[in-house]
């Protein structure tokens, strides 16, 4: 079985400080229109619940962005990272339409799309992705997906999220209390 990197996201312990989002922007230098990592809010009034989920590209096993991109800008690396060769992007936004998680984002100023690279350069230098290092609660853990699954049981899909069977995202979520049955 080929290697596949992934993220474990501890939603139950996340309080939505968005440090991961800011650290990602700072590391990657993305423009104001683009946030590779975003903190989603899952709040309800009745009953009163609060939940935040930090998510970027899920480096899916079956990436729709890769399949639909007309220029072949996306590749699946040997370690499982879904990597975008930015020079090949023509800004057609097919990947934006195809990804159910909204991971590829269009920058109108540049006229191109970009997305999380799992901090490929940092990984190759033996470092962790910037979001993982920055999270004050240690709620994002990067690593081999099989090892993460063995260590952290959790879900790949919550109510209101895209169906995991479509793209098979490389994530494990420890759901917030409101999502636990």
């Amino acid at each position, binding site marked *: 079985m080929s290697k596949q990197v992934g993220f474990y996201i501890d939603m139950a312990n996340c309080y939505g400080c968005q440090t991961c989002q800011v650290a990602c922007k700072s590391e990657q230098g993305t423009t104001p229109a683009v946030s590779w990592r975003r903190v989603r809010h899952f709040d309800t009034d009745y009953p009163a619940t609060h939940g935040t989920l930090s998510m970027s590209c899920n480096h899916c096993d079956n990436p729709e962005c890769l399949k639909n991109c007309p*220029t072949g800008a996306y590749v699946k690396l040997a370690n499982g990272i879904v990597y975008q060769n930015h020079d090949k992007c023509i800004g057609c936004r*097919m990947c*934006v339409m195809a990804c159910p998680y909204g991971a590829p984002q269009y920058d109108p100023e540049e006229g191109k799309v970009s997305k999380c690279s799992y901090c490929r350069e940092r990984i190759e230098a033996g470092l962790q992705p910037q979001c993982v290092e920055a999270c004050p609660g240690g709620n994002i853990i990067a690593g081999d997906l099989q090892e993460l699954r063995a260590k952290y049981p959790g879900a790949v899909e919550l109510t209101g999220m895209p169906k995991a069977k*479509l793209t098979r995202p490389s994530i494990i979520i420890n759901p917030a209390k409101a999502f636990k049955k």
Partner: protein
Amino acid sequence: MEAWELPLVLFTVLGQWGIGIALMITIAESVAPSIVDSANRQNIRFGGMMVLPLIALGLLFSVFHLGTPFAAYKALFNLGTSMLSLEILAFIIVSALALVYSYMWWKNPDSGLRRTIGIVLSVVGIIAIVISSKVYTMPTRLGWDSWETIAAFLLTAVLLGATTVAALVVGNKATDVMKANKVLAVIILLAVVGIVVTLAGISSMYGQSAEQSAVVIGTFANGMFFVRLLLSLMIPVIMAAYILSNKATNNLVTLGLGGIVVGELLGRVLFYSSTMSQYPWF
């Protein structure tokens, strides 16, 4: 306004219109071979010559959808898995055929080769339209991933093509041309029935998922939908009735055609905006 995706609206509708004209001229000519020699010769020749500019204009508009238009050629680099790459290739082939087709209508309308190219263009064009619709039937976009998308694209070609050719040959009292007119009127009516069935299919998506429900609301609760109902459903029915009762004139059908084109453009705006306005998806 951004969710309207105007370059894509113009690309798809103009391309389908051009292909529809070639298809309907082929059908009309097979029903009434003398149609090219009839009193409407100049009109139908004009129709044949329209095919290339419509498809070429559509392709030109499609480039403006890109963030970097000058890199448009790169869209052909992933023919293995990308339907968009395949769509661009298909429309390049259609454009080449349309170039020969329209040129022959201009220079040599009586040629048998022109008829053959018309048949080839019609078949390849229909395949191109199906490929074009398959660009959007992605499993991850629930509002588009259905037979309704394919049907909607094909029906635009049929409705606009049949109405355009009817506008060009209507009023001719030659027996076989009148027969061709009646066939075109029946095709217009069938296209309207097809559009109604397609709209019913879209409405039945309501409740299946949040995205599909939003598509239904975005389509049917939009004021443009009611304008489209009038322009691309009611006007064609009235026009077909006039054609079948031999009361239609060129001017009347041409006026109706203008309305139908606007109606189809609005319908395509609704197709894109009802889904694209939901971004970010999650």
